[in-house]
């Protein structure tokens, strides 16, 4: 009935989705790079097997890792070279990085365990780290779960407090007037400064740790949320009122979604701080967790264990980061994508 041209113009199609993938994986697929990355990873394996080692290392885990890595590349490139879909774009995009990683693996192996140019105990090869992880796997898994649990509880508590405070302070001037000075003064104090006090005040060290991490989180979240609420165009409030929204509905349907982009900025700022506080508070107070594990390893002088914990943290925190990223992508799917 109405304009057929505009009807079909801007609606998101599967093609638009493909464009998004194309801008994300923009490096073109090249056979040379794909082959080269397979070669460097294979070379890393042969280098490890053939070059004589100066240090006593069990390379089993490392070789297993290299074999798995090689197999993964082979499968991805295999599919990428015969199909046209997302996997091809993905494998083409990361081929150069994979090739570099192969070279880096060879380099670190030669520098440490093979020629001992940088030495134990402070510098260890990746092979040793992997072996350590394998040896300590039970303890490390338990520590990882414990750290993840502590982080999750504290982060959720801190975020909720920050969001609720931020929403009310952003929305209600009177409330903002009375509470903002407190927010400013209390929020600016680094959470770590409270550490000695919390250890005494809280009945258990677990509660003290939750407090410290949540404390690192609430301030950036609250601060960004306030700004987010205040930046919502008055048009949306006014149309809500003319449509008969109650105050509660305005909060739920206008204030929260409107502030959400800023809330996520706050959450990502808080995320880094929360990781820092997690490790620090576990080092000081806890008897479990990755922070505790590092501290314990330092005590016995086993730096390979320190590296092992660092590798696990790198993985754990990246997973959390990607999860939050996905959550943001979903929650803000209504936004115009800002990708170029």
């Amino acid at each position, binding site marked *: 009935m109405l304009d057929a041209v505009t009807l079909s113009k801007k609606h998101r199609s599967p093609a638009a989705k493909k464009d998004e993938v194309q801008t994300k994986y923009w490096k073109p697929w090249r056979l040379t790079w794909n082959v080269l990355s397979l070669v460097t990873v294979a070379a890393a394996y042969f280098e490890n097997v053939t070059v004589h080692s100066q240090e006593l290392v069990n390379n089993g885990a490392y070789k297993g890792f290299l074999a798995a890595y090689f197999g993964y590349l082979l499968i991805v490139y295999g599919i990428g070279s015969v199909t046209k879909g997302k996997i091809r774009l993905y494998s083409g995009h990361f081929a150069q990085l994979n090739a570099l990683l192969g070279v880096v693996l060879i380099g670190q192996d030669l520098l440490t365990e093979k020629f001992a140019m940088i030495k134990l105990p402070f510098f260890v090869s990746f092979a040793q780290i992997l072996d350590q992880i394998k040896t300590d796997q039970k303890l490390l898994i338990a520590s990882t779960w414990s750290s993840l649990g502590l982080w999750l509880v504290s982060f959720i508590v801190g975020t909720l407090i920050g969001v609720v405070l931020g929403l009310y302070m952003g929305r209600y001037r009177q409330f903002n007037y009375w509470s903002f000075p407190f927010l400013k003064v209390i929020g600016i104090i680094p959470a770590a400064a409270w550490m000695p006090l919390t250890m005494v005040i809280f009945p258990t060290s677990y509660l003290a740790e939750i407090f410290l991490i949540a404390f690192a989180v609430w301030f950036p979240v609250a601060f960004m949320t306030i700004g987010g609420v205040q930046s919502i165009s008055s048009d*949306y409030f*006014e149309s809500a*009122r*003319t*449509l008969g929204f109650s105050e509660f509905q305005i909060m739920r*349907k206008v204030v929260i979604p409107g502030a959400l982009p800023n809330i996520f900025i706050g959450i990502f700022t808080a995320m880094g701080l929360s990781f820092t506080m997690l490790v620090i508070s576990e080092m000081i107070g806890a008897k479990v967790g990755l922070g505790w594990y590092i501290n314990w390893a330092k005590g016995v002088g086993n730096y390979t264990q320190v590296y092992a914990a660092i590798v696990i943290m790198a993985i754990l925190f990246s997973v959390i980061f990607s999860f939050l990223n996905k959550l943001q992508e979903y929650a803000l799917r209504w936004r115009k994508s800002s990708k170029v």
Partner: protein
Amino acid sequence: MVQLTIQNVNRILHDNNGERINVLEDINLSVGSGEFISIIGPSGCGKTTLLRLISGLDQPETGKVTVDDQLVTRPDASRGYVFQHGSLFPWETIRDNISAGLKAVHGRHYDRNLVAHYIELMGLKGFEKAYPHQVSGGMAQRAALARSIIMNPELLLLDEPMGALDAFTRADVQDVIHRVWKQTQTTMVLVTHDIDEAIYLGTRIVVMTPRPGRIKEVVTNPLTFPRDRTSDQFLEFRRAIQDKLNFGKKPISETI
């Protein structure tokens, strides 16, 4: 039945330097049930300001606005408002935007068929799940229209709902508004820059002058429905209105 009365209304605002501006001066207007009032006047003469007073978003400094003898003190779902810069919620889909008011008033058990009906009527079928930034300006404006009309208000205030549209889409949306007005008997007040549009839709035409914003004249539209934009009577009436707006006599730069 609805009776809107505007009595001796003045709206005084202050500019950035604190200078007093009489945005509206001594506005008197009485609108009866089922009327379609077109308010026309140059940019900045206070049309939006007047509409906001009727809706209850703002209060006049002096004078009063009443609907059925009730003083208007705040916005209400019974007075629909379609904003000049169609303010759909960008975080809700077209369907959720259209049903937003229904959900707010009737809760979870709102009339889903009604929503489907308006999606169809506004030519938004197939775009229910799209977000506002994914549809054209014309579609967004029709969705904003649907969102207000679906509430079945006794009074519908339209602030240049077609201002941002091209000529073809504009004519389509005008016809939709006209059809809804005939079917629902809703009293409508339309603000527009466009003389053709004012005449095509309005039963009475309110001509405003700027600085201070005053009602210069209220003209009853002699044309019967259906109206033909190219008929002699239409063009003759158009000329009469144009004369009242002083177009052609004053350069445009002075009126803005």
